[in-house]
């Protein structure tokens, strides 16, 4: 790959990060989000964990919260792009010789970094609440989350550039995010539900990812569940980047 490609990616990334960090709302909301999930939601789940046979409520729920953070944060990343498009920034960047893929990748990297920091805050705080488990597993779990987030951010940016309207994008994102959230066993494991619900959830790739991260948190690296989660993460990551890159390369986008 051309050396200038990475240089251009870094320029775009740095610009995005600089603007984000200068926005106090972005920083505060980004950090408060994982804390809110943990503080307001964790206590509700503690009594249920025992019923599910889990030894530690947080080892069970933090993986779900991680994926939720990844999905939601990243899926909404495209909204910022619409504002940039409206301000003419995207077109101005597209008349430069810079690679169109770099224009996308630099933006995704910012979302990925945000997710990574949020994940660390979430896991770190969960230790205070009593999280136990494999540290290495948590690191791998965070990596899967970040890859999933990158896929979602790429898809979200692609959707933003295609629709170019917040009014169209918001309902689309919501109608995707809600079933994914409910059918992935993010908040509660799907095994709690009736058979038909479990069968429907079998078609949800993110369910396998959540399950894999749960396994990883327990230190189970080489199980079938972990393998499926890793495979689905890689598939979604590749798919997201492909769709995103294609949209950014398309003329008149």
């Amino acid at each position, binding site marked *: 790959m051309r050396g*200038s490609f990475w*240089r*251009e990616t870094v*320029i*775009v990334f*740095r*610009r995005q990060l*600089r*603007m984000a960090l*200068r*926005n106090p709302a972005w920083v505060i909301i980004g950090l408060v989000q994982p804390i809110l999930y943990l503080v307001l939601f964790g206590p509700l789940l503690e009594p249920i964990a025992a019923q599910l046979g889990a030894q530690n409520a947080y080892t069970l729920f933090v993986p779900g919260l991680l994926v939720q953070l990844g999905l939601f944060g990243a899926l909404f990343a495209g909204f910022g792009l619409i*504002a*940039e498009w*409206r*301000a*003419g*920034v995207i*077109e*101005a*960047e*597209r*008349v*430069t*010789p*810079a690679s169109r893929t770099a224009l996308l990748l630099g933006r995704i990297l910012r979302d990925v970094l945000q997710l990574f920091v949020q994940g660390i805050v979430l896991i770190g705080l969960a230790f205070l609440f009593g999280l136990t488990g494999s540290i290495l597993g948590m690191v791998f779990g965070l990596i899967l989350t970040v890859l999933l987030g990158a896929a979602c951010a790429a898809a979200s940016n692609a959707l933003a550039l295609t629709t170019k309207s917040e009014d169209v994008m918001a309902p689309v994102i919501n109608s995707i995010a809600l079933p994914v959230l409910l059918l992935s066993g993010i908040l509660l494991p799907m095994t709690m539900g009736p058979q038909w619900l479990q069968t429907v959830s079998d078609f949800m790739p993110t369910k396998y990812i959540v399950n894999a991260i749960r396994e990883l948190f327990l230190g189970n690296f080489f199980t079938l569940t972990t393998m499926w989660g890793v495979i689905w993460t890689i598939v979604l990551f590749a798919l997201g980047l492909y769709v995103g890159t294609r949209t950014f390369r398309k*003329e*008149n986008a």
Partner: protein
Amino acid sequence: MIHARGLARTFAGRGKGKEKVEVKAVAGVDIDVAEGEIVGFLGPNGAGKTTTLRMLTTLLKPTAGSATVAGFDVATQSQQVRRSIGYVSQSGSTSPEARAGEEIMDHGMLYGISKQQAEARGRELFGQLDLEGLWTREPRAMSGGQRRRLDIAMGLVHDPKLVFLDEPTTGLDPQARANLWTHIADLRTNLGSTVFLTTHYLDEADALCDRILVIDHGTIVASDTPDALKRQVSGDLVQLVVGDTEQAARTAELLGGIADAELTTDGAGVSARVRESGTKIAGLIRELDAAGISLESLEVRRPTLDDVFLDLTGRSLREDA
């Protein structure tokens, strides 16, 4: 600098019901722009100005025809074209909450310029475009004129040989427009740039451009200097108002003697197109005086590009603007 032959763009649209129709946004245009020229691309909204511009700046692929810009083919050498041109679009180029100086540096670096060079060039342009002291200002806190000049600075950061300006003064107040005109004229004077600008303001094209291309319904209907285009219109508009309708009838006869076109009478008012009116008006006044006609007012209006446009397309440009 620009050579386009039969450049065309059709969009797939939908007609009545579900039948597919091809919408010809640009129906094959030939454009030639020499180095150092300031050329205006004039036409009403929807005439195909922006589509043509987007093809010449590699943002849109032509569906037919070919074009070389700054010596490179827009279809096969888009990278080289992008490196050689600056494009200032209608919609702006900076994020409202970014800082002006950082935006121009990042933009320059995307062109492959080093950080130091981009900063030096950016500060130099801020000086030339009356943006001193605004380096750390956010575009949302700038006036419309300042933002437009910042957009122009963004388009010039890599020292392009050719600059495209899309409706550079749309939405600006008259003072800011006049100010921007001097800066656009300076692009050539100080930097030796070739400038290609679209506008639907006739006075703008008149004030700035060496040559004007008039586009309507996707085809170029005229290409000449503003003066030559104005000469195509049959002379100056001479408007007289006399004492009463009786005198007006007599005046119409006398004015008819020197009129070339459009002789009309409206109550006590008489008007006509007269070529080289300057040499004929004095005689007319003497004749009116001799005939005992009391002249209330006399007005001579030089043809404007609006008249040219009306002449060429049968419509006034202002109706669309």
